[in-house]
């Protein structure tokens, strides 16, 4: 699968979706050499996915719109050829990876493309085994893909793309549902493929992953705004923010304390020490005492176990915990550890097969739907699973109407929820034409309008660019400060560390840890055992011999000159 010289060439490529006012990409040119690994970054809607679709021929072949320019892969023109012909050279993983799965077991899923390509059986077996080994799914080869966790499905979709061993791989947000260890593993796979001569273009929002690539290309409003070494752009937090990239913690810390720090933890603590910076023990100690006092118990789980009837898989094992008023709790754990299953017990969407769940003292098995919805709001990862109205106002009014509020009360609640999510003035807009980040805010507003005491949010940052991720977490933090109890599931460790007070860590359905976020990210053994990774600032503070610090703000506050 290796080659030499130019692998991909795009010249002055523009594309306007049918019915759109402006081009999604406008005059983008890029060349990738064989074996080169490039990251494509930028805000949501910057044109990353459109460019990816141009490289594998879906645009213009299967997407109505206006295309201009020329794309060549391996020297051959892409436009005008069938997508399945281009697929001999270009493997593509799409954002909606779940829609790509269609087989009844993992092995057959990976073999599908190979069968279509007419590959001999022995060769197929070798490639299926290698691809599953690469993504760490060898043990699950007989499983029905529908019964896998989100992260496992994403890895399976990737294996299916890797198995034909294409010379060029285009991966559109391949890590959205992966836990930190799986992300790290994917980075290793990507490096291995590059070493074998595979050309990779990866659209992603994670600056830390991009740091190790050969090249970073940043798009903004459909045009190329940066194309060069990753560290050059990522060392500049202001420019990153301008391009919708969440700055690296160490780049930001360096900018705040006025020194150039290595962009990764290795050597950063030494660099700080060499500059005469140390962490003030007294100030660090104060941070721990600033944790808010939790209030009355709101949700109580006692000996909760849950087994899915269809697959027979036991997803929760004897979980006992209490969520108290005013807490900001994060659920952490590897893919398939039971986080979503646990979260769906917190508002009665699932009932335990053993044990009890009580919300406000009521057993969820017997409490009516409206009563639970009024107390605990639940937001699914994909806002499109709930949005159905033609205006933002109607969408947000849906919940309070279900709860029996009068029209005047509904109006008041809608106004309040829209103000809380900074959507005031958007009442008459159509939610379906908003960006994903905006639709997620509409979904949050529609839950807030029910005035729940608790909000459970499954992956609030998935699919959002760095700046939107920060804005969403700030919004949740503000709601929490105003009294709403917040529970989030996330693989985003910086968000967990920076915003949550308490972490529940799940490991194969068991509660492996229930303590403060600071304690969890300070426990190296626990993190290793449960597939978690501490954020960079936490690792540096530990290297400096202080207690675990959780954000750049905390580092800046505690760093003193000796």
């Amino acid at each position, binding site marked *: 699968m290796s080659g030499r010289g130019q692998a991909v060439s795009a010249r002055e490529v523009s594309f306007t979706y049918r019915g759109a006012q402006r081009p999604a990409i406008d005059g983008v040119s890029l060349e990738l050499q064989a074996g080169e690994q490039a990251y494509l970054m930028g805000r949501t809607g910057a044109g990353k996915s459109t460019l990816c*679709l141009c490289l*594998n021929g*879906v645009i213009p072949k*299967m997407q109505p719109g206006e295309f201009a320019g020329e794309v060549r892969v391996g020297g051959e023109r892409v436009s005008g050829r*069938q*997508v*399945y*012909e281009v*697929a*001999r050279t*270009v493997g593509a993983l*799409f954002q*909606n990876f779940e*829609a*790509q799965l*269609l087989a*009844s*077991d993992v*092995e*057959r899923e990976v073999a*599908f*493309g*190979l*069968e*279509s*390509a*007419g590959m*001999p*059986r022995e060769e*197929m077996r070798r490639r299926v085994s290698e691809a599953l080994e690469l993504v760490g799914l060898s043990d699950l080869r*007989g499983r*029905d893909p*529908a*019964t896998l966790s989100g992260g496992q499905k994403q890895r399976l979709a990737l294996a*299916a*793309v890797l198995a*034909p061993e294409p010379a060029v791989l285009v991966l559109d947000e391949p890590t959205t549902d992966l836990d930190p260890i799986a992300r790290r593993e994917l980075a290793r796979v990507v490096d291995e493929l590059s070493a074998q001569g595979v050309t990779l273009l990866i659209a992603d929002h994670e600056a830390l992953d991009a740091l190790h690539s050969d090249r970073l290309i940043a798009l903004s409003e459909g045009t190329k705004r940066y194309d060069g070494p990753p560290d050059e752009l990522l060392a500049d937090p202001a420019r990153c923010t301008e391009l919708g990239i969440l700055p690296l913690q160490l780049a930001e810390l360096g900018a705040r304390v006025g020194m150039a720090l290595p962009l990764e933890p290795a050597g950063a603590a030494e660099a700080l020490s060499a500059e005469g910076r140390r962490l003030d023990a007294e100030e660090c100690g104060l941070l721990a005492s600033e944790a808010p006092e939790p209030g009355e118990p709101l949700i109580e789980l006692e000996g909760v176990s849950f087994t899915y009837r*269809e697959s027979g898989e036991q997803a929760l094992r004897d979980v006992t915990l209490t969520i108290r008023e005013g807490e900001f709790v994060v659920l952490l754990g590897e893919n398939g550890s039971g986080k979503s299953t646990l979260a*769906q017990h917190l*508002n009665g*969407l699932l009932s335990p097969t053993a044990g009890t769940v009580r919300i406000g003292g009521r057993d969820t098995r017997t409490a*009516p*739907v*409206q009563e639970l*919805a*009024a107390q*605990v*709001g*639940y937001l*699914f990862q994909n806002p*499109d*699973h*709930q*949005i*159905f109205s033609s205006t933002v106002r109607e969408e947000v009014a*849906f*919940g309070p109407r*279900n709860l029996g509020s009068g029209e005047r009360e509904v109006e008041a609640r809608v106004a309040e929820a829209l103000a809380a999510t900074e959507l005031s003035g958007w009442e008459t807009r159509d939610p379906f034409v908003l960006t994903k980040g905006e639709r997620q805010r509409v979904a949050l507003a529609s*839950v807030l309008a*029910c005035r729940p005491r608790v909000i459970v949010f499954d992956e609030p940052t998935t699919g959002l660019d760095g700046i939107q991720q920060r804005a969403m977490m700030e919004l949740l933090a503000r709601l929490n400060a105003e009294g709403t109890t917040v529970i989030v599931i996330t693989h985003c460790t910086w968000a967990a560390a920076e915003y949550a007070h308490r972490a529940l860590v799940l490991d194969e359905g068991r509660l492996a840890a229930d303590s403060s976020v600071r304690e969890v990210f300070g426990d190296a053994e626990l993190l290793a055992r449960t597939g978690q990774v501490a954020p960079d600032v936490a690792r540096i503070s530990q290297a400096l011999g202080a207690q675990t610090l959780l954000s750049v703000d905390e580092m800046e506050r505690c760093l003193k000159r000796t």
Partner: protein
Amino acid sequence: MALSLYRHEDTPAHRRHPVAKLLALTPLFVAPLTFNDPLWALGTLMVSFTLVLAAGALPNLRRMWGLGAILLVMSTLLWALMLPDREAVWRLGPLFASPTSVAYGIAMGLRLNAMLMLGVAYVSCTRPEEFTWSLRRIGIPATMTLALSLTFRLVPMLAGTAQTVTQAQMARGLDFHSGGPLARIGRYIPLMVPVLAYAMRSADDLTRALESRRAGAASKQRTEYYEYAWTAADTALLALALAYGAAAVWLRLSGFGEIVGRM
């Protein structure tokens, strides 16, 4: 949500050659269609039930007991009231029934249930891929079998999406169980819109993904990941199924198992 009714087990029925199972289905379906005497229909039902047990399909059958019950009740009622029978003994206005028409209705209900059981047994021990593989083996073009696979894929995908959407709306207090019929119908709009919108987007994404995985080239050069060896047990299954179907037809032609002659 699982994408099919296939059960991941290793019963003798699972191990049979996909083509043997597909070909055996025809004579197996013939037998229940043959008789209209409830006792004989019950006999074919018992054969079908034995096959359900052999395929490890009982859990799937349990999931469908409601459908089976509806088929039995509706069939009994409709045939009892609609079978033209001059010797009708029960009359109510334009409606009439007789012991024969009731027995015939029961036989038809049992017939439908016997066929339902055969279908459940088949899909429980045969993967969708094995079904489409056997179709290709008997000469159906790969593009057509691919289209069929997509149907297998899309129906449960829609069901899975509907489940998530239902949960999302219930989490906002939507109650499907209160109010009159019109109010209840109205409550399905918040389900239909997101499900349809998601289905359309997913269908689009699936088409792109399939093309990118070279599905468009499938009919020209396709190879198969799995090969299935035909064994003596497969021949025996086919022979038994044929004998069963043939015996049923012969018995019926000999005057057994019928309470109503050809109409």
